[in-house]
């Protein structure tokens, strides 16, 4: 039993062994971004089977980040060793996360980003394989239609939304 003393259990204590590991540095941040599909879309559906592989542990990413850090410092002797150069993929993923979360889009693992990453959240990835091109985009396209043009029907075509959003011919992605 988790210890408590109040009648309404409001002082329920969590033992430290039950606490989730916090996102504290670029290594754990990279794991976060990988886990939730920002580095690369996740095939979440395949994880439903008990035989599925788990998503990689934080330890693996710590090692990767260490190797990146070592590369960074060795290649720039005069560089700031307190802020090693991040991989482009990491930066791109971080920018995307910051943009979607309404944070200042700095590309740097700053305090605001750390707080956002440590918030309670759902375990389902934000970006999934296949679903990117279908329901995620469809839902967000329809919402964009509503937000930018209140007279649009739910079936607004992609071209209209693209022009409103970013003027490019790429598929819209909110």
């Amino acid at each position, binding site marked *: *039993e*988790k210890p408590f003393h109040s009648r309404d*259990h*409001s002082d*329920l204590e*969590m033992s430290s*062994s*039950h*606490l*989730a*590991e*916090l996102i504290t540095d670029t290594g754990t941040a990279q794991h976060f971004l990988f886990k*939730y599909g920002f580095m690369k879309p996740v095939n*979440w*559906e395949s*994880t*439903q*089977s*008990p*035989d*599925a*592989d*788990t*998503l990689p542990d934080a330890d693996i990413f710590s090692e990767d980040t260490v190797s990146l850090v070592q590369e960074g410092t060795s290649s720039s002797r005069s560089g700031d060793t307190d802020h090693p150069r991040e991989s482009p993929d990491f930066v791109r993923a971080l920018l995307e996360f910051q943009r*979607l*979360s*309404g944070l200042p889009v700095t590309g740097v693992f700053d305090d605001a980003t750390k707080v*956002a990453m*440590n*918030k*309670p*959240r*759902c*375990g*389902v990835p*934000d970006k*999934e394989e*296949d*679903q990117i*091109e*279908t*329901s*995620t985009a*469809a*839902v*967000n396209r*329809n*919402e964009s239609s*509503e937000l930018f043009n209140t007279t649009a029907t*739910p079936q607004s075509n992609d071209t209209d939304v693209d022009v409103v959003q970013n003027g490019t011919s790429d598929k819209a992605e*909110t």
Partner: protein
Amino acid sequence: EKQRHLQTLMRKSIGRRKRSTGASWGHAAFAKSVLTWRLIGEGYSSQLSVDEQRYIFRLAFRMWSEVSPLQFVEDLRSPPDVIDIRLGFGTGRHFGCSQRFDGAGREFAHAWFLGDIHFDDDEHFTAPNTGSGISLLKVAVHEIGHVLGLPHIYRSGSIMQPSYRPQDDGFELDWLDRKAIQNLYGGCGGRFSTVFDWIRKERTAYGEVVVRFNTYFMRDGRYWLYENRSNRTRYGDPVSVQVGWHGLPSSGVDAYVHVWSRDTDAVYFFKGAQYWRYDSENDQAFTEDADGQRYPRLISEGFPGVPSPIDTAYYDRRDAHIYFFRGSMVYMFDVKANKLAAKSPRKMTELFPALTPGDHPTSNLDAAYFSYTHNALFLLKGASYWRVAGRRERKTKRSLPYNSLLPSREVQQQWFDICDVHAGALK
């Protein structure tokens, strides 16, 4: 052994479900509209009573039911592997799931499209409106959204945001979340027994008498209050007729008429061969009114010449007649003379001519509804409605025939999200 057994069950279950639904990513794949769910016995939370947990999940499923054509029923009897949606609490490694929970903080749950929902019991889940902890209701509504096919949505106010927002009092599914689920499963349809605006008088704090109205849609033994300004039904509807309209038949009514003139203010409900007079002040049907009439009363006695049962009816203040609809005919009842008008009955198509040839309900109306919001009369049948051209329309276009029917539209396009719930979920 337990874990291996669960893994085997899950493998079989997932395979069977995928084969039966033919699901593909990103498309609404539940082919049936009534889905079963269960909180599995091995997966109770240690923090709330089982009854509380089941109540919260029932409410969460009902919230999705209120905005989509899906209905959910708790199934405590069938074998687990035929249950559509299974829910459970676990910590760390749980249920043979490949995705380990991380302990208190950060991840609180996960779910799969067409699949199960797992909650991290290391989180401090609480009942709704507790003020502290993580609202189990909010998390459950979010995860059910995933099961139904919704992805994470980065929009302030969406229940599908990936991060948890501390619970605000009485959170609900907003317009865009409703449209998101309806994009996958379609809107809510179905015929109505009757539709009406119920007038009531209230006294303000200053002693003034004000007249207010509420809009109601009835279907068999249930009804919805429709909030015109919010373009939706009241949260938590539908409700049983017997709960909200005391003294009326629990199976519902055929018609509602409010005779409102200088001399008369009387509300009537009609069902089969009988009718009731409603006491709006005391919010119940009269058993005996001030005139000594006892209810229910035969339609043939109170409205001589009017057949029964009727399809629907409405009171027209312009000529002080009640228009009773039955089949393709309309019976005009003179309230002052207490008898049918001359040249009655008449064909509906004659009294309410179609503006567009062929675009007419012709017979067996569901409801004739005068709306104070729109100041217009509407005729409803099935999924369609026709607006009767009134003074405003005829002012702008003088050639419009009297009481002609403007082109039909879908009921869903005018009154949104009037969705049914499973009978077991009705109060």
